[in-house]
Each structure stands twice: as structure tokens, then as C-alpha cells.
């Protein structure tokens, strides 16, 4: 385990807790329904979504505000419970897990990169990166840690607190945290929403690299069409449904699809 990124990448996608071997889905959902409110005020955030996120692929979820893309991510990450339908991470049916099991799943098998407030303000960057491992009381693989911080260019800021880091540095720290435990799946929720174009590009390039070079699975919720072009595949949502899909997206094809959705 000491040497070789290639080696690490394979264990990352086929460990005991990892997703099934390549070709399978890292996560999938069947007929997900999620509603908020009651009676006349009832709003369907998800109106029967069946989707699969393939392992070792970079999938972007796009759609206008209120289309249900964040709710989909929350349900699939075990942060929210759907009213009906099934969600799987790997082979694990999330409905069969209690709070403790779901927490453990998020900790060990899912990495998160949020739009903002990604880091615990009282912990240093290094402590934030190792947080899920520390919570699990697992030993941090130092080589993997060094590789990630080197690749992300944050080695010099490891002892700083989040308030002393720029937005881009914070986001890259969050990426390191998301990948450190070699999760089967990384969820990125508008990871570039608060960043300038330079920092956005750096963050997206790293997510892209984690898929291409490290065999990671990334699902990114975004409404930035430029961000979506980093993905292998883009799924489009509107009114709680999957409405379209693009493989090998380009800026032009994504924009065209979004324009279509608004009409």
C-alpha cells in the first residue's frame, strides 16, 4: 500500500466498502419521490427519479433552481429520506440503515464538497482534512495524505484555520477531505458557486483528475454550464424529474439544453 497511485486507485474503487467492480453503479435510485409541505401547499421536490451514477465517472446534475437537484443529492447521500422509492450506495439500500448506519456510510463511503461552509472554523486545514478519518478513529494513510495535499497545492497552509484561507484554498481543502478516506462516491454540491473563475477552474480540474487518474466517482450538482463541461455526462432535471442527458458535454451543448429547459 506504500507505493503507487495506481495501486491506491484500484483499492479506492473496489475495497470491501467500495462500489461493485467497474462497469456497475456507484449509486442508483429507483422511483424517488420527495414532497414538502401538506395539502394544497404540497410541493414535489422529486417526482419519481430513477437514476444511476456509474463508478469511475464524473456526472454533473444540472437544472434550474427548484428543479430538485439538491434534494436528489441529499437523498442519495443519506442526508434526507425520500417519501418513497429506493436509494442505493453500491449494493447498500439506504432505507435499511438507521441514523447511526447512515452516519457511518457518509463518513466511510461518501465524500462531500459543499458550496460554502465546508470547513470547521476551529480546526486547522490538516485537521479538517482528516476529520472523517478521526471520527472513524481510523489511521490516516500518510502517503495518500501527502499526495492529495501536494496535488491540491495546499501543503503550505495545513496549519492555518479556514478563516485564514482564500475561498479557493478552502474548497481545495474540502476536496482533500472528501478524498482522503477513498470513498466510493464524492458528492459536490455547487462546489464552485462561491469561487472566482481561476479558483473554479482549479477545483474542477482536480475533481476531473480524481476521476480520470484516481478512478474516483464524482457526482456534482451545479448550475454553471462551464463547470458541467468537466463532467463525462450531464443529467438535466426540471420540476423534480430527469428530463435530459448529455454524454461528453461541451459548453455549447450544455447551454443549448439549459435554454431548452427554460422554455
Amino acid at each position, binding site marked *: 500500500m506504500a507505493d503507487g497511485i495506481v495501486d491506491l486507485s484500484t483499492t479506492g474503487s473496489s475495497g470491501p466498502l467500495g462500489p461493485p467492480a467497474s462497469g456497475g453503479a456507484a449509486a442508483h435510485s429507483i422511483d424517488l419521490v420527495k414532497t*414538502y409541505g401538506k395539502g394544497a401547499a404540497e410541493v414535489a421536490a422529486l417526482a419519481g427519479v430513477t437514476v444511476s451514477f456509474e463508478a469511475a465517472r464524473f456526472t454533473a446534475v444540472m437544472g434550474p*433552481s427548484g428543479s430538485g437537484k*439538491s434534494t436528489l443529492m*441529499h437523498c442519495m*447521500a443519506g*442526508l*434526507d429520506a425520500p417519501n418513497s422509492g429506493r436509494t442505493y450506495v453500491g449494493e447498500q439500500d439506504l432505507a435499511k440503515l438507521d*441514523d*447511526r448506519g447512515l*452516519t*457511518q456510510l*457518509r*463518513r*466511510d463511503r461518501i465524500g*462531500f464538497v*459543499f458550496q460554502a*461552509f*465546508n*470547513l*470547521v*472554523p*476551529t*480546526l486547522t486545514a490538516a*485537521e479538517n482534512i482528516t*476529520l*472523517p478519518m*478521526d*471520527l*472513524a*478513529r481510523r489511521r490516516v494513510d500518510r502517503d495518500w495524505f501527502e499526495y492529495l495535499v501536494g496535488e491540491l497545492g495546499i501543503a503550505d497552509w495545513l496549519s492555518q484555520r479556514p*478563516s485564514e484561507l482564500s475561498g479557493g484554498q478552502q474548497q481545495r481543502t474540502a476536496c482533500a*477531505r472528501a478524498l482522503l478516506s477513498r470513498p466510493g462516491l464524492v458528492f459536490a454540491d455547487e462546489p464552485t458557486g462561491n469561487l472566482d473563475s481561476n479558483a473554479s477552474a482549479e477545483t474542477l480540474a482536480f475533481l476531473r483528475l480524481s476521476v480520470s487518474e484516481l478512478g474516483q466517482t464524482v457526482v456534482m450538482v451545479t448550475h454553471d454550464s462551464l463547470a458541467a463541461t468537466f463532467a463525462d455526462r450531464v443529467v438535466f432535471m426540471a420540476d423534480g424529474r430527469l428530463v435530459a442527458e448529455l454524454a461528453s458535454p461541451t459548453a455549447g451543448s450544455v447551454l443549448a439544453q439549459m435554454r431548452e429547459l427554460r422554455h
Partner: protein
Amino acid sequence: MWRVTVKGLLARKLRLALTAVSIVLGVTFITGTLVITDTLNSTLSSLFGSVYQRVDFQVQAPGVLKIPESVLGRVRAVPGVAYAAGGVSGYARFVAHDGNPISTGIEPAEGLAWVPAPALSAHQLVAGGAPTNPHDVVMDQATAKRYHFAVGDPVRVLLPGGEETFRISGIAGFVGAGDVPGATFASFSLPTAQKLFGAVGQLYTIDVLTRPGVNKQLVRQDIARLLPTGIQVVSGRTVAEQQASSAAQSVAPLTTVLLVFGLIALVVGAFTIFNTFSIIVGQRTRELALLRVVGAGRGQLLGSVLLEALLVATVASLVGLGLGVLAALGLEALLNALGVPLPSGPLVFEPATAAAGLGVGVIATLVAAVGPAWRAVRIPAVAALSAQTEEPESGSKRRILPGGVLAVLGLGTLGLGLGHASLATVGVGALGISVGGAMLAPGVARPFSSAIGTPLSRLLGISGHLGQVNAMRSPRRTAHSASALFVGLALVSAVSVIGASLAQAATSSVDNAIRADLIVSSSSGTLGPGVAREVSALPHVSSSCLAYGADFEVRGSTVALKGICTSDLAANVILRIVAGAAVPALSRGELLVDATTARTQHLRVGSLVSVSFPEAEHATIRVGGIFQPNALIGGYLVGDRFFQTHFPGQLPGAVLVSADRGYAGIVDEEVNRAVASNPNLTVQTRGQFEAAQTAAVDQALGLVYVLLALAVIIAFIGVANTLLLSVFERVRELGLLRAVGMQRRQVRVMVRAEAVIVALFGAIAGVVVGTGLGAAFTVALSRQQAATAVVVPYESLVVFLVIAILLGLAAASWPARRAARLDVLGAIGVE
């Protein structure tokens, strides 16, 4: 958006409730203390004030003097005197139907002589008649009602000379006051009272009522002219004042403790209110900034925040006032349960109490609100809108310099006080150190939390580490939370050091007090005439020794004098002579004093002391020896023969009994059997006697501990309050932690770790400072009065720290549960 609004509102409501809780607690504390103090004072002053309002003059014998009875006839013969009545009083305690002596709040139980003239009497018959023969007694209305006695009933009465049975000739109440609960009296005919209280042919007082229309001053002069030297005449008002002040003095230690307690309550309550309000206003910084952006002026915002504070404070203070009255009832019950019986009257709720409770609650809240509110409205609106809702960290540094100066000044004053043996100066120094220490607290909170938290992080992993950094993130908040604890635990520790030192001093004087196996004493102060003879005649008693006690005057002030057997002294009493001699000096009729008295009175062997005895004799007596402090004897000791010549007819107060070797147990049983019929008598083994001496210190300490414990608990409620608010403030962070895999259990551990760090911060600082202050007080006390070595009760101090940890955990339980149950999605900010 709707969900967030509702949640925000709910959270806001809870925050409001939390502020209110801290105000309610503070006001409850203060009100309860004031109500109970007022009740105590009013009961006592209605008791003693009304009694003497009808008397024009009273002839008094100051100190230990008594008035020859012949004076009464001569006073009656003075022109203008309508009535004159002689007074004698002493110990008299009724025995209830169940055989138990009746004990009330006011000690000693009073027996007195019935005043036959209704115009002059403080008492008024409500049933039956005056006592006319030696077997009659008048019982007070309250006792009769409570213990079901009626006119004509026989009743046993414990008296200085033993127990006697009387017939209730009448039942009386206080003129104008009816029955005053707690004030019991047994009234006998004058000759009977004189006989019972060892004053045959003598009077303690003569109450005088003049005829209407006479010149009272002339009558007074006439009376004064015929009095023997040393006897004086004073006005009725003076008597009432004397009585009230002596009554007030008898409860002064208690009222002082209660008031100090109230002050501590105030400080602790104010800390809590202040902390809560600064957090709440701090959290509203963003909201206030938004209002600024849309056009509200700074003054308007400040006004609205203060108005809100005023409303909350007023409502909460009113609730606190109500609860305070309930607390007073509870406190009264508590004190009774602790063996500190109070004269129970109807609860007194003075307007001043309402004013104090409301004033403290409202002012503390406004003061607490104004600082944070001012800070909040002064921040540029745009900066506030984008800022994190963390408390700004200015100010903590500003307080370090004055805090340090104050602490150093306090330390200096303390040193000065120690040098001059002045308790008051030491007290001022202690106050300076405490306040200065509290001001310094924010400066040291960070390193302190870091130091305490490091082992916790090791033990609890990342959850412990997060607790540690949370405790460090806002040193001011941590310091404020801990300050209330600091004050409480500093006091508890100081009291325990002083208490342990005093108890040690008491024990060492007890250990060295008696050699006898048994000591027989009486609750009335004296044994019956036959008791000593009967006990010493029992088989296997090797020797016995009589001890007498009475008051006499030394250099003009009344002090207790003991008389002791000279024949079997060494077998029964341990007298460690440090100068002069024991038995030879006592036999010569010389005075022995203990080392403490010798030092404070500047006496040496050979010193001549002017003293006076009850029969108005003045004498000069030589100091023949100095002994180490002895719990049995006290400051002044003479031989039994000398004692009897100056206190003729005085009965012994105790008899010490030594058994033949190996027969101590048997003799104990025999003596107990011999005195079983007399409930007044107590038989103690040497061990029991020693335990009883320290029991008094323990009981006083117990009371102080209970009161301080309440203050400490209030402080912990403050900690819980602050923690809960912190949890609300860190909602997003908690959501993030839960999202990336923190288990609920780990969230709880994190919050508890923070609580324990805050608790330990306050507790350790409090225990360290308190121990130092306690030691300083003990040294000052030792210089001023009895020599007392400083004893640090390490076990107790460790127990305090453990209790602080446990209470910290208890304080964290609700906030921890709250934090663990947090909805992750709501927390990470879903639209």
C-alpha cells in the same frame, strides 16, 4: 424559506426563554434571601419590641450583678410610682405529652416571674389565672395550642435544678401580639421563680409604671437616688432597644450568612444574565445590520434592543419575585432540617424586597444588554452582514491591565491585612483578588482550556479535541461562564479551608480536654443537687470531678468562668500548663487562663486582674497559671472552693466520671440508668464529647455549604444556558460535522467535553484562589484570636473538582442532546 423562518422564530423563542431563566434565577435567589431575613427580623422585633413598650422605667443590674429584693419595696414607696414588679428569669423548658422537651427557635427557653399588675405585664391571660402557689405555671398560648395543653393540666418542666411537675394555672399571650410563634415562656410566681432560678432574695430587674400625670423625670431621679451602687434605672424604650439588639445579635450570624449569600447570588446571577444577553445580542448582529441597511438609525436600534431587554427583565423579575417567596419557604424548611430552627412567623414581603428584586433583575439585564447592543450597532452594516455570527473578540485584552492591577492591589491589601491582623483588610484584599481574577479570566481562558483539553483530546479523540477548541474559540464567553463557578467554588474552598482549620483547632483542644470516661451535663446548664452525688457513688467509679460554670466580669466585660474540682483534677481533666501551676494555684484561689486569653488580654503568671462577682463584690485576683486551650474549660478557670464562695448555692454544670480500669462500659450503662428519668441530662463518653465539640463547627459549615451549593448550582444552570446558546450559534457547523460522518454520540461527547473544560476552568481557578484566601483568613483569624494552624482539606478540594466535573456533565446534558438531535439538512442550509 418558510421552514427556516419558523425554525428561527422557535429558536428565538427558546433563546428568549433562556435569558428569562437566568434573570428569574438571580431574582429568585435575592428575593428568597431578603424575605427570610425580613421574616426573621420582624418576628424578633415584634416579639421584643412590643414587650417593653408599656414600661416607663426599668431598674437594671448591669453585667452579673443582682438587685437585693428589698429595693423593690423601696421603689414601690416612691411617690408617683403606680406599679413596680420584680423580674427574675432563667432556663425553663416544657416537656410535651410524648416526653420530648419542647424546643423552639429562640434559645434559651425562658422562664420568668409572672407580673401580677396587668398594666405592666407584657403578657395577658387568655385562659385560667395567675400562678399563685409554688406548683403553678402559666404557659404561653403558642405552646399550649401546638402541644395541646389546657388549664389544669399537669406539665413537666426542665429547670436549672432538674425536672419538676407543675399545674397549668393559666395560658397567656403577648399583649397586643397574641401568640408569637417560636417565643415560648413559662411564668411562675415571683417567689417560685426566685427559688427555681437560684435568686432567693434577689431580683434581676424591676419594671416601673408611673401614675398618669406625674413628672416622670422626677420619679426617675427619686428611684435612682435609692438604688445601691452599680444598679441603674433606664427608660422603657432603652430596654426595648437593648432587648431587640440582643435578639438581633443572637441571629446576626445567620442574617449575615444569608445576606452574604444574597450578594453571591447577585454576582452569580448577574454573570449569567450578562453572558446570556451578550450572546443573544451578538447573534442578532446580522439582523440588526440588515435593519441598519434598510434605514434604521443606531439610536433606534439601541432603543429597541434595550426596550426588549427591559420587557424581558421586568416579566422575568416578577416571576422571580414570586418564586423567591416560595424559595424562602423552602429555605426555611431547609434550615430547620439542618438543625437551625428559626422562629417561624408569617413570611414578610417588604416593598424594599420587591424593589431590590426588580431593580437587580432589570438593571443587571440592561447593563448586560447595553454593551453588546452598542457593539452590534456600531459595526458597519455591510461588514456585519457578511460577518460570521461569532462574538467579536475585542475587549478581553482591555480588561487585562485593570484586572491585573486590581488583583495585585488586592494581594497587597491582603498582605497588609495579614501584617496588621485585620480581618476586614484581609476581606477587602480577598474581594480585590476575586474581582481582579474574574477580569483576568478571559486572558487566561485560552491557554487554560488548551491545557485542560489536551488530555481530554487524547482520551476522547476528535470529539474531545473539538470540545477543546470550542472552549477556546471564545475566551470571553468561556471566562464568563466559568466566572460564576469561580466565585462559587472560591467561596466553597475558602470556607472549607477555614472550617477544616477551625475544626482541627477545636479537635486539638478537645483531644487535650478530658481524661474522664464519661461526662454528665444538663441542657439547662446545671445538674440537680443529687445527680453528682448519685453518680459518683456508683460502683466501679474510681473518681469524679464537678465542673461549675457562671459569668463574671473581667476588667468590665462579662465572660464565662469555670470552676473545677481540685482534688481529682488530674484524673479527669487534661490541663496542659504552659506557665505557672495548676492544682496548687487553683487551691490558693488563683485564676488560671488559657494561652489565647493570656495573649489577647496580655496576662502573665503573676498579673493582677480586677474582677467582679454577682453579689456586687469587686476583687483583685492573681493569675496563677496559663494552660493550653481546652474545649471543656474555656478562657478562665478557678478552683471549686473559690467558685462556691463567690457563687453560693450555684449547682454544678457537669460531672466528669472516671471508671476503674476495664469498667468504662459498665459504668456508662449504670450512669445512663441512673439519670434515665431526667430528659435534661446528657451522658457522653469521651469520644462523644469530642465529636459534639466539632459538631458545632460541622453544623455551621453544613449550612454554609448548602447555601453555597445552591449558588454553584445556579452557576451551572448558567453554564448550561451558555452552552445551549452556543449550540444554536453553531448550527451550520454541527450540520457539517454530522454530514461528514460525526455520530450523534460523538456530538454529545463534544458538547460535554466543552462543558467539562469550562467547569474545570472555573473550578480549578476557584479552588486554587479560594484555598489561598481561606488560608489567609485563617492566618488573620489566628493572629487576632485563637491560634489556628492552616489545614488544607485536600480530599474535600478533590471532591469539589469531581463534583464540578459531574455538574458540568449534567449542565451539558440538555445542550448535548439538543445538538445531537439537530436536523442535518436544516443545519447545512437548504433553500
